[in-house]
């Protein structure tokens, strides 16, 4: 039986398997069709119906289950929903267990949330450092501007204020008003 306890391990392994079998298009299709449209259909339903309050309901529940030690912080206003991950439970699992079968595990989040948010009328500003720390700001599509200044949405919980945000080994991937996992700029 495949379990949920080490889900992030075999999930990441599966990305690498898809890459070998069908290349990058199959990995992208998996994130969109299997995760966005099928597995996480409850997230899409909530966000499509309620917008930012729906995001709060979905991630409030999911992240508490995945990260009971609260390695994250959620901020929200009428015009923006933000999550700061200080210790991503998923990436952290891989780092602690020294698991790597795919080139960039962190891409999977944009791989399924990007298309979902597009369908729901939102765009994403995001950065991750590949060390289990990242931040997300989700705003209605068409909102002008680039990344918000550090601390302007989540105050002192902003992941960019963490002392190890740019530690040795950290490599930033950046998305600006994006919905596509390949729209990142290093």
């Amino acid at each position, binding site marked *: 039986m495949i379990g949920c306890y080490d889900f992030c391990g075999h999930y990441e392994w*599966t990305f690498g398997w898809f890459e070998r079998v069908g290349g990058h298009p199959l990995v992208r299709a998996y994130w969109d069709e299997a995760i966005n449209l099928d597995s996480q259909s409850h997230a899409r339903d909530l966000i499509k119906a309620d917008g930012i309050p729906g995001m709060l309901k979905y991630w409030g529940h999911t992240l508490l289950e995945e990260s*009971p030690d609260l390695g994250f912080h959620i901020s929200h206003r009428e015009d923006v929903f933000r999550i700061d991950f200080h210790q991503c439970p998923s990436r952290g699992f891989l780092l602690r267990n020294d698991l790597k079968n795919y080139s960039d595990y962190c891409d999977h989040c944009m791989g399924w949330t990007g298309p979902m948010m597009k369908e729901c009328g939102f765009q994403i500003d995001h950065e991750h450092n590949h060390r289990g720390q990242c931040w997300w700001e989700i705003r209605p599509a068409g909102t002008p501007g680039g990344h918000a200044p550090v601390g302007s949405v989540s105050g002192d919980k902003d992941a960019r204020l963490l002392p190890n945000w740019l530690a040795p080994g950290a490599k930033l991937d950046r998305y600006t008003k994006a919905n596509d996992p390949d729209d990142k700029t290093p």
Partner: protein
Amino acid sequence: MTNPTPGSLPYTDTKPVGSADFYFAINSTFRFILGRLGRNGWIRYLTDLGTGYYAPVNTQWQQGGLPAVAAYWRAFFAAEPGGEVEIKELPDRVELHVKVCPLIKHLRAHGRVPVKEFCQHCYHLGTARAGAAGLTMRLCGGDGSCVHTFALPAAQLPAQDRNQIKENLQ
């Protein structure tokens, strides 16, 4: 929080029990592979997963024999939410009597329909893992309750009767 099951699970987390909503993604992954690559592609995925990702478990089983198999499954089910499983250690085999499968239970409770081949994944994955450890694996039942047998070759289990693995109700 410390590792709840030192030594028995090769990959460990800081929380004692996994998040059951991940079961949705396991079912969706199967549906995606079956749709894109067909049944043979799905079996290849499970076989590769069994010999690749689970290689550290297979090594534990190969080196530790049936006690290691039993210890692994005890630790495994302790970390899965909602199951009811009895593990029997016999001289030539370990039997997992799954009275309530945590995966099927959670999917059904949330209105998710398992792919009809769902329970066969335990056979294909289990066979790959057992084979790598020098053991044999058989499965009987499915769709919520079943018996897995991991045995020494000397047990000379009869060949797997595929009709004994239930398809999942749609």
